[in-house]
């Protein structure tokens, strides 16, 4: 064990707070989404599977081995998506915190499986370029893990097809900045596409709804 008990306790609280903050900032619904923080080069703390963030306690977070995620101790059963968090941490030594979630606007692009172009200097700085879409795979599968790792190459965020978004930072604060800029950029991109498709100059939800009804209405 290459970390102190004090550091572990601090990081357990970071994970607990990250779950609550995802809920507070409207970046997740229900029990979906999971986060991880690195303890050392081969260990991380992750959120457990299937429990609501409000009820979770810092001591519930299991310690998972990065090189073999079937090995875990303390806490409750880890999230089935731990393999993705571990694969990113193994691939990227500078990454110490990861978030996987399903915020609304990111989910829209994940569902359309569209790459998000760079929308601002802030997005370029935080994400590192256009956000790609990883190959579709069922939750917890090798296909989903490999698709996400490939889409994260030289990036700090990517979409997971029909699923959500994955973000990685040097710490949890940075990972939150990244998920926030992804959500904001997706919203802006959808507005721009609405104006382009309708030929109008000013966006409103009603404009989008009218276009949708004219195209999909029965």
């Amino acid at each position: 064990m290459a970390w102190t008990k004090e550091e572990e306790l601090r990081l357990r609280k970071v994970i607990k707070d990250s779950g609550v903050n995802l809920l507070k900032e409207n970046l997740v619904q229900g029990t979906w989404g999971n986060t991880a923080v690195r303890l050392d080069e081969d260990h991380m703390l992750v959120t457990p599977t299937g429990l609501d963030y409000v009820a979770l306690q810092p001591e519930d977070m299991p310690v998972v081995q990065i090189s073999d995620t079937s090995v875990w101790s303390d806490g409750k059963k880890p999230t089935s998506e731990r393999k993705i968090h571990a694969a990113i941490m193994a691939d990227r030594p500078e990454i110490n915190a990861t978030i996987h979630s399903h915020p609304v606007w990111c989910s829209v692009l994940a569902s359309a499986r569209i790459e998000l172009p760079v929308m601002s200097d802030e997005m370029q700085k935080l994400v590192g370029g256009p956000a790609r879409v990883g190959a579709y795979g069922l939750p917890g599968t090798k296909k989903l893990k490999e698709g996400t790792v490939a889409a994260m190459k030289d990036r700090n965020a990517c979409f997971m097809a029909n699923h959500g978004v994955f973000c990685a930072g040097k710490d949890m604060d940075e990972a939150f900045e990244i998920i926030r800029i992804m959500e904001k950029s997706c919203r802006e991109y959808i507005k721009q596409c609405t104006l382009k498709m309708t030929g109008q100059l000013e966006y409103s939800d009603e404009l989008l709804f009218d276009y949708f009804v004219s195209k999909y209405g029965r």
Partner: protein
Amino acid sequence: MIDDKIKETVLSYAAKVVAEGMSGRGDRIAMRTKDGFCVNDASVSLDALTEEGLVELPLTTEDKEYAVIGRLFSKRPEVHAVLYTHAPFVCAVARAKATIPAVLDDMTQIVGLNCKTCKSATADDLVNGLKKRNSVLVPSGGALTVGRTMDEAYTCALVLDKASHAYVCGSVLGGNKLINCIEAKLMNIVYQKKYSKVNQENISKREGE
């Protein structure tokens, strides 16, 4: 007499629906009780709901304002909470009388393989539209969502709202790429029978059922 914990749960989730911008004219929030179900009085909107605005009715009620809810609780013994809400993107799909296909995996888990707009707002059509689903859209209205707990019915409404965003916005993004039917079914079964089971049992105790 309505249990205090149930009253507290209904009022707190009514406030959440309002805070999330999912409320509108004709909203309903209902929870199963020992003798039937408790629901907001049809004349009281969710943003003005207090304990005095709650009524308890038998499952067999024939009052047209509440009969659908009684029928749902009778037909689906596992259902303990019903919501009728009006999130703007959901209402846009209901206005188009469209069916939301399997656009997102959490939708397939909690809402169902798709979410249809039913033919009419009659009790028969709505109850039929909820077969093997936890949500149905009312033509030119809002969304009826159900759950094993109020928390699950509320989460279902949130996830449906997100799926509606994906589907509506997909129209300006060149369309959605859909999850295939077999994978959608698999995710639905795993969620309902395994992933959420313990969590829903814990929440059920907290909500006073």
